[in-house]
């Protein structure tokens, strides 16, 4: 077991290497893609611009330089805090990511918390009463949903609750024509419900399945047998031993699932036209907004890697055997 300072230092170095690697690959992909940033920028005006003007724009953006030079220049700007200009939103990339992420954060954060709480509780119940009616119900729910694409769930929800029943709005984070800062809290929540449901339903299913598998393993352990010998009820065992021992794996899965959560939010935000980072990703892709796309890629990498690091750190904190370096010596008879 390495000490904390080494653990943190190791993680930071690893994160830096991962980010550089991702930056390199993403940049190479953007360069190799058939999207021409100048065409994407010009849009419908493409016919009005002659070759001389195109060359001027290219020189202005540094596109006439060799790819290696372009990359180092971009990386240098990045390190200096300049993420570039988004042509899609006509604003600095950093600002676009900032506002978009704040919108997404509510959606993803709530979906994440719901997944953790409900998924964990359902998984514990299903595993502790394995084969019972609750277990069968939860299993069907989890397997069906874990194998259903998010966008499909999202479209289904939209069709049922917004189109047929008319209970929820069809799109966006607020009523059309109202400025974002004027949207009331009630309206915000009304617009959040469906994307949140689409995103949570899947997360809950995943955490529930993981927790159930762990719980079944726990129910076969010696310490549960001992609790039974002490006359403990199943509920007692589920709460005292099950929740305690299943918490670590569930937390790890939860933090490690941030990537899928982000992927899910891209699809859900697209279906519900929810103006978050996920939708910005698709917009940037369609419009060939290379600076925004690259920045989002790096931001996502940072986000997911941090999630994984937190999962590992929590694991060290919560498990007394891992937190205590003397554990191995102390266990001698």
């Amino acid at each position, binding site marked *: 077991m390495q000490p904390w300072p080494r653990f943190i230092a190791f993680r930071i170095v690893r994160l830096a290497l991962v980010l550089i690697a991702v930056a390199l690959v993403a940049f190479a992909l953007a360069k190799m893609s058939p999207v021409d940033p100048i065409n994407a920028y010009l849009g419908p005006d493409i016919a009005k611009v002659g070759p001389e003007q195109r060359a001027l724009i290219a020189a202005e953006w540094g596109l006439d330089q060799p790819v290696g030079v372009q990359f180092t220049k971009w990386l240098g700007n990045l390190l200096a805090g300049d993420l570039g200009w988004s042509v899609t939103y006509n604003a600095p990339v950093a600002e676009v990511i900032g506002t978009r992420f704040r919108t997404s954060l509510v959606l993803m954060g709530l979906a994440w918390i719901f997944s953790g709480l409900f998924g964990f509780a359902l998984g514990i119940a299903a595993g502790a009463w394995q084969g019972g009616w609750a277990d069968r119900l939860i299993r069907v729910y989890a397997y069906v949903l874990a194998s259903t694409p998010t966008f499909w769930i999202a479209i289904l929800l939209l069709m049922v609750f917004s189109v047929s029943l008319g209970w929820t709005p069809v799109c966006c984070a607020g009523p059309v024509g109202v400025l974002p800062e004027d949207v009331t809290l009630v309206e915000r929540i009304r617009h959040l419900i469906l994307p949140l449901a689409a995103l949570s339903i899947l997360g809950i299913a995943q955490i529930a399945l993981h927790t159930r598998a762990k719980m079944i393993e726990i129910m076969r*352990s*010696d*310490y549960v*047998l*001992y*609790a*039974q*010998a*002490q*006359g*403990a009820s199943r509920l*007692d065992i589920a709460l*005292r*031993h099950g929740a*305690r*021992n299943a918490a670590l794996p569930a937390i790890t899965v939860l933090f490690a699932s941030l990537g899928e959560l982000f992927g899910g939010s891209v699809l859900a935000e697209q279906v519900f036209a929810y103006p978050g980072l996920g939708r910005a990703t698709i917009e940037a892709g369609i419009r060939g907004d290379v600076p925004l796309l690259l920045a989002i890629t790096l931001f996502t990498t940072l986000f997911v890697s941090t999630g994984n690091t937190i999962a590992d750190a929590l694991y060290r904190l*919560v*498990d*007394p*055997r891992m937190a*205590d370096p*003397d*554990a191995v010596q*102390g*266990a*001698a*008879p």
Partner: protein
Amino acid sequence: MTLLEIDSLSLHFRRYDRLFRHVEVEALGAISLALEAGEVLAVVGASGSGKSLLAHAILGILPKNAVLRGSLWFDGRPLDGTAQAALCGRRIGLVPQSVSYLDPLARNGDQLRWAALRAGRSQRDATRLAQPALQAMGLDPAIARDFPHSLSGGMARRLAMAIATIGEADLILADEPTNGLDPDNAARVLDRLAGFARRGKGVMLITHDLVGALPYADRVAILDGGRLIDVEPASAFSGRGDGLRSAYARALWRALPQNDFSLPEALHHA
């Protein structure tokens, strides 16, 4: 007073042989045994002879594929599933055979308190009883805040004894309580178990170490391959073992290193 009576108990494991046929594999066969209050009954047998299964059968914590036949009686009443649920942790306590029976993520003090709660104590009583229970087993109350991994084997056994007795159990089932302990620690654990018997509890001392158990046991039951070979008074295991009734017990006794390894001869006479 007869505390526990085991009447022609047999235990089989159901195993699926081919697709739809299942076979039963015998693990315990026709065991009849009684345990009196105030005595230490040693149950001696080699590894795999079914000692733990016997204890688990009494507690009603057998695996799902186990088929139990025969009957169990506790304090004159049938010890069926309902009675087991009511009595386990209260009047019957288990000292398990390894440290893995303690929850690795729960504090020692909590596990002790939970045992008291499971025995029907109130929250307040459980908290109040924990410290004296540890002290009675010669444990520092400070270990209540630690986790099981920091306990030595001997300390873990004594914590398990505190857990087994915090509900004032009348019958203690101790499964290999000295396994892996050095002689000093083993003696401390066995002393305490014998102490329970002196105070009127019944103790089933499960072990594979006949010699180690003899100074503390009143009677010795010998288990081999899931069958009860014989029950002998502990005092009969002395000298050349001429007081032993069964040939198997005599052979077992004479085969011990300190008793001149006379296995072949004993078997020939038997």
